């Protein structure tokens, strides 16, 4: 970066020098000299331009090497970006598997719990009859058999439920693994952003020498216009609904909006 500033300072100094010389030559009528000076000014500018373009392409190559894209061209390996894409696919797979496993376990628990509550209710009704002396001896014997079976099944079901709950807990291990993967990808994205910013800085130096100016407002408007052409493309889940005016913060908001419009 210091080199860049030096080169700019150098360039400005040279320009000033030549410009002064040019004015002097013109004022003294030495037009031949003036034309030579103009040529020298152009040369100075060209040299500066080549220097900055050289720096820019060097930075670009450096970024490509950093992201290992060149090695991949040659050896057909996966670049860091491809790797990141693979990792994110892995996250989607893992979370899907964990969700399905958890749901499998939960679905298994349903019938176990239903049996317990259904049978307990039924036995409770009969038990009340017994408590109110509304039961014959034979009915009571039946009841004791049923209670016996129930106790056995309860124990069995409770153990199974306990196991399932434990396994549901374990199935949440995806968060750790996917979290690690996502952190790596986030890091890669930051590195790419950093490289891009460096490139942009280099490029702006080139623009200064070449006298090019890019209107960021115009670029932004163009970008927004392209996006506006396809409103059916959604934005996905909102991260900060409460900070945006154009987004609802929950089902209640949705209902309010719709009823306020007569839907």
């Amino acid at each position, binding site marked *: 970066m210091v080199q860049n500033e030096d080169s700019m300072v150098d360039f400005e100094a040279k320009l000033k020098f030549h410009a002064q010389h040019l004015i002097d030559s013109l004022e003294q009528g030495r037009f031949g000299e003036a034309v030579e000076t103009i040529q020298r000014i152009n040369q100075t500018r060209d040299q500066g331009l080549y220097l900055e373009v050289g720096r820019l392409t060097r930075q670009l190559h450096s970024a490509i090497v950093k992201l290992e894209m060149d090695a991949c061209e040659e050896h057909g390996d996966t670049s860091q970006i491809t790797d990141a894409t693979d990792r994110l696919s892995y996250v989607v797979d893992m*979370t*899907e598997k964990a*969700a*399905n496993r958890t*749901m499998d376990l939960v*679905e298994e628990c349903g019938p176990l719990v239903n049996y317990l509550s259904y049978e307990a209710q039924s036995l409770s009704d009969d038990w009340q009859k017994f408590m109110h002396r509304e039961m014959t001896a034979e009915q009571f014997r039946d009841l004791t058999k049923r209670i016996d079976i129930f106790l056995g099944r309860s124990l069995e079901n409770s153990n199974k439920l306990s196991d399932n709950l434990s396994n549901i807990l374990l199935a949440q291990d995806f968060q750790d693994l996917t979290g690690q993967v996502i952190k790596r990808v986030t890091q890669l994205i930051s590195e790419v952003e950093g490289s891009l910013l460096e490139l942009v800085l280099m490029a702006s130096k080139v623009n200064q020498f070449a006298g090019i100016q890019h209107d960021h407002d115009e670029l932004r408007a163009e970008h927004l216009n392209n996006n506006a052409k396809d*409103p*059916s*493309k*959604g*934005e*996905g*889940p*909102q991260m900060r*609904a409460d900070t945006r005016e*154009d*987004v*609802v*913060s*929950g*089902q209640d908001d*949705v209902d309010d*909006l*719709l009823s306020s*419009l007569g*839907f």
Partner: protein
Amino acid sequence: MKILIVDDFSTMRRIIKNLLRDLGFTNTSEADDGATALPMLQNGNFDFLVTDWNMPGMTGIDLLKAVRADERLKALPVLMVTAEAKRDQIIEAAQAGVNGYVVKPFTAQVLKEKIDKIFVRVGS
């Protein structure tokens, strides 16, 4: 009642299917995109459509518009269940003729309320 559940994420389809089963609706089918859902609707005698918005082939909003434009399907009740929460989108869905709009994440209670609202229940 025959219901079609459309979402590109299988876990969400499973969750909705289970919630519908808990509410007593056991006759459900699934599609993973608006593009595969539309022919199913056209050939299938469905009574209710539950769809997401964002899908790679045909989005939920385009599916809704296609349903409303189809002579035989235009009266089909449609519930959108989606993460899309921009006001403009909600209004667009309402104007396109959606019967209910549920934002994710949602509760079983909300789903039940919206379905009940769409189909007035006689008895239970």
